[in-house]
């Protein structure tokens, strides 16, 4: 007993001939069906090129094998009947296409099938349990009628489907037949194939399937359930589909991957993949492995590609999923922290934070003069420029670009009312952001100038207005960032505990107590400065109820919950 191949070809006839010759000379009969669209001259050349082989036959009636229609099944049936009649020694019949390529020596396949003489290899999945198809119809393949061509008369096709749905029209399934779906490429035993083709009710089945959508994925897959003794529900042909349901193509650079798959046959092969054809069309016993087919590796590779194709990578901008419309897959690539008021309150806060957390700590990235990168570099990772103009041309893009190009390292930066406020909305809506605010702390900078004048008063009023608007956004109901807000007065009641709490969230490892505390700036006289402003008519309420007394601020170690928005 041997295995016979049915080939359905429509393009790249030279490659099909090459594969047919390989199978035929390896002792396997081949029956070829060429599509009606193949020009007569090309077809006769094709026949002539294989004329010297006595175990190659051609289907005389050439059908039009349009995708999704009965033609493909009809062609398969014709070829199968010819195969069974002409080659009585064939035990298994293998259905292949012109763009299939055997990956393992033919004797190996023959031996594999000879060991399993009663097994039918055909993927056959019931539509009740599994969504097998990628998009498109599922059970409606069987319950609706499809008399119009999908490719040539799309409008009629769609309208007729709509009409049937609206009228609630359905079809009755032939008695006893359970619809199954599966890959078009199968390998059946002579016994099963004969039983399907010689079935008394075949005319009834054929009539039904002629109006089924994509019958080549359901005709044999359903009928085999009525006749087969042992079904292995998998295809021996390696064939992958992308998320649009189009078959993947294999190229020369897939050589090693295909080799390791241990599958018997693969499709589709790019016709110009010379290296694949020259490497695999040999029966060299040296490559024999006698292994079970193992397409797992290829499956995983293509699944990850499909995943990236469909979901994208977070924090990597794409036009059609700009963060504005909430269809995005993450605004930024990784977590980052924003500190507001800390660098005013603590001396050398950036250096200290860098030591305490190991994160990259920038200054005011949105400062009015330039983006203050860590170490005040003029150009940062990925060649981001510190130019304020370039940054402000697209402030949110600037932040996502920074986070993207420093993947794997948490970024921290200072922010305040002097800075460009544009990115506030963006950060507040970003779950990757951690925002900690000491309101009113910016006033320490003004106090340090040691002057109380009209100018200072106006500036304080301006900054307070900006901060007020900023805090209002931080408290918005749609906020997704981790946000903490203290007034200056609240914060300095227990600065260490509050800081510790922020750092606990940043460091992923076991939390350690801070050994070296950041140094509070000298606030003696600050209360009086605030009172002075108040006396001049400017109430700096964002700083909270700051004591008017002089003297250093008490370091209170009592735990006090900060105001936690989310």
């Amino acid at each position, binding site marked *: 007993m041997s295995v016979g191949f049915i080939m359905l070809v429509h393009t790249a006839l030279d490659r099909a001939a090459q594969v047919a010759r390989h199978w035929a000379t390896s002792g396997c009969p081949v029956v070829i069906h060429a599509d009606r669209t193949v020009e007569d001259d090309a077809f006769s050349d094709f026949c002539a090129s294989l004329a010297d082989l006595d175990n190659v036959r051609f289907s005389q009636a050439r059908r039009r094998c349009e995708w999704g229609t009965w033609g493909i099944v009809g062609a398969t049936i014709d070829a199968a009947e010819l195969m069974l009649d002409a080659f009585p020694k064939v035990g298994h019949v293998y259905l292949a296409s012109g763009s299939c390529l055997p990956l393992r020596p033919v004797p190996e396949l023959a031996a594999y099938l000879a060991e399993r003489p009663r097994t039918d290899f055909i993927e056959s999945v019931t539509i009740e349990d599994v969504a097998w198809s990628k998009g498109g119809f599922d059970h409606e393949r069987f319950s609706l009628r499809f008399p119009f061509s999908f490719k040539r008369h799309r409008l009629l096709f769609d309208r007729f489907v709509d009409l049937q749905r609206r009228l609630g029209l359905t079809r009755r399934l032939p008695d006893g037949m359970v619809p199954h779906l599966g890959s078009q490429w199968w390998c059946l035993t002579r016994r099963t194939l004969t039983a399907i083709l010689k079935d008394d009710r075949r005319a009834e089945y054929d009539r039904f399937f002629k109006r089924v959508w994509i019958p080549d994925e359901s005709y044999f897959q359903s009928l085999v359930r009525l006749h087969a003794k042992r079904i292995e529900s998998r295809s021996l042909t390696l064939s992958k589909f992308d998320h*649009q349901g189009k078959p*993947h193509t294999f190229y020369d*650079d897939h050589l090693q991957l295909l080799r390791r798959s241990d599958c018997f046959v693969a499709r589709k092969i790019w016709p110009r993949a010379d290296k694949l054809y020259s490497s695999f069309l040999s029966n060299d016993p040296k490559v024999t492995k006698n292994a079970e087919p193992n397409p797992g590796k290829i499956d995983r590779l293509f699944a990850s590609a499909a995943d990236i*194709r469909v979901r994208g990578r977070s924090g990597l901008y794409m036009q059609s999923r700009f963060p504005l419309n909430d269809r995005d897959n993450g605004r930024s690539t990784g977590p980052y922290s924003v500190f507001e008021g800390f660098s005013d309150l603590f001396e050398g806060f950036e250096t200290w934070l860098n030591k305490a957390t190991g994160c990259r700590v920038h200054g005011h990235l949105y400062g009015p003069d330039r983006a203050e990168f860590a170490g005040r570099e003029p150009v940062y990772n*990925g060649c981001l*420029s510190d*130019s304020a*103009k370039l940054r402000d*041309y697209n402030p949110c893009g600037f932040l996502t670009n920074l986070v993207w190009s420093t993947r794997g390292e948490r970024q921290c930066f200072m922010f305040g009312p002097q800075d460009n406020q544009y990115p506030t909305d963006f950060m507040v809506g970003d779950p990757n952001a951690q925002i900690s605010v000491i309101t009113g702390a910016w006033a320490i900078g003004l106090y340090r100038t040691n002057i109380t004048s009209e100018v200072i008063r106006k500036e304080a009023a301006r900054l307070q207005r900006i901060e007020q608007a900023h805090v209002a956004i931080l408290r918005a109901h749609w906020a997704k960032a981790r946000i903490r807000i203290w007034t200056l007065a609240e914060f300095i009641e227990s600065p260490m505990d509050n800081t510790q709490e922020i750092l606990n969230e940043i460091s992923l490892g076991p939390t350690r107590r801070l050994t070296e505390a950041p140094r509070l700036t000298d606030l003696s006289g600050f209360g009086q400065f605030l009172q002075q402003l108040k006396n001049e008519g400017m109430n700096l309420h964002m700083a909270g109820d700051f004591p008017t007394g002089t003297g250093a601020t008490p370091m209170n170690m009592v735990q006090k919950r900060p105001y936690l928005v989310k």
Partner: protein
Amino acid sequence: MTGPSGARPDLGSVGLSGRAVSATRFRWKRRRLLWRSLRSRHDLTPINDRTATIARDQVLCFATMRNEGQRLPHFLTHYRALGVSHFLIVDNASTDGTAGLLAAQPDVSLWSTDASYKGARFGLDWLTWLQMRYGHARWCLTVDADELLIYPHWKSRDLRALTGWLQARGVEAFGALMIELYPQGPLGSGPWPPEADPLSMLPWFDANGYRAVRQMPAWNLWVQGGVRDRVFFADTPRQAPTLNKLPLVRWNRRYAYMNSTHSVLPRRLNLAYDGPGDKRCCGALLHTKFLPTVVEKSAEEKHRRQHFGAPERFDAYYDRIIERPDLWNEHSRLFRGWEQLVSLGLMSAGEWH
């Protein structure tokens, strides 16, 4: 593009009638461009017409050139290796032997013209005419002499494999990001040995700092960034060069490029590319502008005033190049190949594995 991922941009408040008006406007704009191109054929003198050898299903390359003799050998080698079967080139009054070199190539059809480059929409009118005449129903690659197209797997799969794959998915156009390559050290220094690979002379690029917006009403993408943005246009970001292109299009004689190959009509073709971060298969155009001749060329360009838009606005830019700045810094990336660009998010293989 067609297919499930070809979602139209949100047209916001533009109503149905507004959409129809704008569609009509662009239809007439396209006809106007085609008419201009048709007329511009009188400016072209065929030097060497080998278009009879073009067969069906071949990938054609269209280009306008002026004094690119030094870049040409590598340009031809690169695109021949990618499977371009025929080059259709317009020589715009070269004086360095470019024409002679091109005429000697067996797979080049050459036209020449002395007409104004700017007057012909920076050569687009000429190329649109050639595409109308020879590019219909073929994949057409439109590039400048200093642009080298690469895409995922380009070393092992040629353009016929790529276009075959795109076509099976109903995709009509292929987008690419211009990656500007630059040397280490001052511009314009060092020798340029003939036959040298430009990629080995300009191995550096900016890996980040690109920004993209979709522009209404032409649905065209506008990507800016890269080294020229950082160094020359930091104070005037609006004027920074546009970096998105659609160099490869399954052509129809009714199509027309609108603004270089950045945008094309009909508008739906512009949606085939979303810029860096696009999830679909897309490519990169390696821009070799900063080869040693850039300084003298910039002096000439400043004098010719054929730059896009208002030429006087770019005087400062040319002046800066003539000062021979060093574009390199320690964050510059060394170009290693397409896999690197994919992992940096500058291009994507999509599902073409």
